C-alpha cells in the first residue's frame, strides 16, 4: 500500500447556528513533519482541529486522518492521534503523576506499567520535582509540558497541537518548540495551530493560512513569502552625487521603481529575487558607483499574513 497522507480533508464545513465557522477547508498533510495552520483568532482553526480529532461532526465535506474517515471510522482515528487542546487538556484537580497514570490506565497499561510510564514522562519533561502538587498550582509552562506529556503516553502517529505556546514566556515557549522538534524527529506528524507567525516559521515545513473558515494560501514558509513578492534592497552610496546614475541603473536592471530615501546617499527598490539584486549591485560596481553599504530584507511572514488576510477580507465581504 502506498503511504497514506496524515490528513486529507475536502470541503470541510461546520456551522454554529447562522455562523459558518469552517467554510470548505481542504487540507493535504504529508506524514512526518510539522504542518502549520496559521490564522487569526476566530478563523476556524480550532473548529477544524476538533473535526479532524473526531470531537465535532462536520456539517459537510469529508476528512480522512491516517487513512480513516473521521466520521465513519472515528474509533480507528482515535487510536492513532492525540490532542493537546487550546484549554490545557489535563485535569487541574489532580496531580501531574495522577494525570499521567489516569491516561496510561485508560490506554491499557497495567497498574505498575502506568506508574513507571508516568515517572518516565515526568522525568523527561522536567516535571518530576513538582511531585504530588495539584496541576492547578502549576505554572503555565509546566502545565503545557504536562499537557504534551499526556499526549504521548502512547506515542501517537499524529498529534494535534492547538496554540501550544499562547500565554507562555519565551523560555517556556522554546522548551515547547524543542519538544515538538523531538516529537517530529521520532516520526510523529504534528498539526500545529498557531496565530504566531514566527512559531509557524520556526517549526512548520508547510503552512496553510486560514481566514474566515477558508484556506487562503498554502505552501512552505518560503513559498508563502515569495508569493507576496519581494524583499526590499536598500543601498547607500559613497558619493551622493552618483545617486541619479544609480537610480537609473537599478531601475533598468530590476524593472522596478526606485525610491529615493531621506538620506541623500540612499535608495531602495523592491526586488523579486535575491539573485537579480546581487547582479544589480555588481553592475553598480562595474559602472564605478561606490556602495558604502546595502541590505536585502526578506519579507516577514507577518507581511505575508497581513497581505493575504487583508486581501481575503475584502473579497469575503459579499456572501453572508
Amino acid at each position, binding site marked *: 500500500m502506498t503511504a497514506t497522507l496524515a490528513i486529507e480533508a475536502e470541503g470541510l464545513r461546520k456551522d454554529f447556528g447562522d455562523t459558518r465557522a469552517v467554510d470548505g477547508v481542504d487540507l493535504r498533510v504529508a506524514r512526518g513533519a510539522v504542518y502549520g495552520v496559521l490564522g487569526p483568532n476566530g478563523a476556524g482553526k480550532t473548529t477544524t482541529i476538533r473535526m479532524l480529532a473526531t470531537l465535532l461532526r462536520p456539517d459537510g465535506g469529508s476528512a480522512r486522518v491516517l487513512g480513516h474517515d473521521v466520521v465513519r471510522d472515528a474509533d480507528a482515528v482515535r487510536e492513532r492521534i492525540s490532542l493537546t487542546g487550546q484549554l490545557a487538556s489535563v485535569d487541574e484537580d489532580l496531580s501531574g503523576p495522577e494525570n499521567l497514570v489516569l491516561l496510561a490506565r485508560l490506554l*491499557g497499561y497495567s497498574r505498575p506499567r502506568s506508574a513507571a510510564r508516568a515517572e518516565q514522562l515526568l522525568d523527561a519533561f522536567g516535571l518530576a520535582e513538582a511531585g504530588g502538587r495539584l496541576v492547578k498550582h502549576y505554572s503555565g509552562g509546566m502545565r503545557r509540558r504536562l499537557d504534551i506529556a499526556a499526549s504521548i503516553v502512547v506515542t501517537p502517529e499524529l498529534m494535534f497541537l492547538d496554540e501550544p505556546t499562547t500565554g507562555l514566556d519565551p523560555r517556556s515557549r522554546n522548551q515547547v518548540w524543542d519538544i515538538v522538534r523531538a516529537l517530529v524527529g521520532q516520526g510523529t506528524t504534528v498539526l500545529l495551530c498557531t496565530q504566531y507567525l514566527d512559531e509557524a516559521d520556526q517549526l512548520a515545513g508547510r503552512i496553510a493560512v486560514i481566514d474566515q473558515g477558508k484556506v487562503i494560501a498554502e505552501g512552505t514558509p518560503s513559498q508563502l513569502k515569495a508569493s507576496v513578492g519581494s524583499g526590499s534592497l536598500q543601498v547607500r552610496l559613497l558619493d551622493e552625487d552618483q545617486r541619479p546614475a544609480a537610480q537609473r541603473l537599478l531601475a533598468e536592471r530590476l524593472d522596478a521603481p526606485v525610491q529615493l530615501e531621506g538620506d541623500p546617499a540612499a535608495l531602495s527598490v523592491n526586488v523579486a529575487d535575491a539573485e537579480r539584486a546581487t547582479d544589480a549591485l555588481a553592475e553598480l560596481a562595474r559602472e564605478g558607483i561606490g556602495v558604502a553599504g546595502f541590505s536585502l530584507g526578506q519579507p516577514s511572514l507577518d507581511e505575508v499574513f497581513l497581505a493575504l488576510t487583508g486581501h481575503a477580507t475584502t473579497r469575503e465581504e459579499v456572501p453572508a
Partner: protein
Amino acid sequence: MSTTAPDAPVTPVSEVALHAALASGTRPPRPSTVSVVLTFGWRGMLKIRHVPEQLLDVTITPVLFLLMFTYLFGGAVEGSTSDYLQFLLPGMLVQSVLFTAVYSGVTLNTDMTKGVVDRFRSLPVWRPAPLVGAVLGDAVRYALAATVVVVLGLVMGFDAGGGAGGLLAGIALVVVFAFALSWVFTTLGLVMRTQSAVMNAGFMALFPLIFLSNIFVRPETLPRGLEAFVDLNPISHLTTAVRGVMAGAAESGDVGLVLLEAAVLVAVFAPLTARLYGAKG
C-alpha cells in the same frame, strides 16, 4: 517549590530522556470497557482525596437533619421522639442520599468547562465511560452519607427489626435509586450553563418531592388531594420499601416498584445524558 517562581531556572527538558520516552510509548492492547469505567471512577475518588472538605455536606447535613427533626418534631408528630425516630430514620436515609445525587450534575457541569473532557473524548474508549465512571464513583458518596445516617440512628436508639441484613438492604436500595436519579441530574448538568444553575434547579426539583412524600408524616393525615400526590411520588415508594426492609417486613411488591422506577430513570436519562455529552462540542 522553585519551578513556580517566575525567575527560577526552568528545569531543562532532557533531550535524551525525551527521546527515550517517545521511543517506548508503544500502544498496549485496548483495555476492557469495565476497566475504563473503573478508572474513571478512580478519578472521582482521587478528587475526594484531594478535597475531603467536599464530603462535609454529605456527612454533616444528614446529622443535623436527623437530630433536628427527631427532637424538634418527634413529640408533636408521633407522641414521642423514640417512636418518631422509628418512623423517620428510613426517610432521613432517603433524603440525605438523594440530595447528594444533585452533585453528580454539578460535577459534570464543572467538568465540561475544562479542556480535559476534550482529551477524554479523543481517546479510543467507550464514549460514555467518563460519565458512567463518575456516577459510579458518586455511589461511594451515597454509601458514606447512608452509613452516617444509619449509624447515628442506631446510636439514637433506632430499633432495626430486620437486623444488619435489613439495614444493609435498605442502604443498598437507596444507593441504587440514587444512582438512577443521578442520571437526571447529569442531564441537567449538560443542559444548564453554570454549576450554580444546576444546583438550584436540582434542589428546586428535589425539595418539594422530598417534603411532599411520606418521609416526615403519615399521608393519611394530609388533605385528600395532597395525599393522592404523596402516594404517587416515587420518593414515597422508596421510603415505604426502605422502611419495610429495615423493619424486616419487606413487601416484594414495594421493592419491585422501586427497582422498576429506578430502571425507568436509567433507561430514559442515561442515554439522554450520553447523547448530550457526545454532541457537546
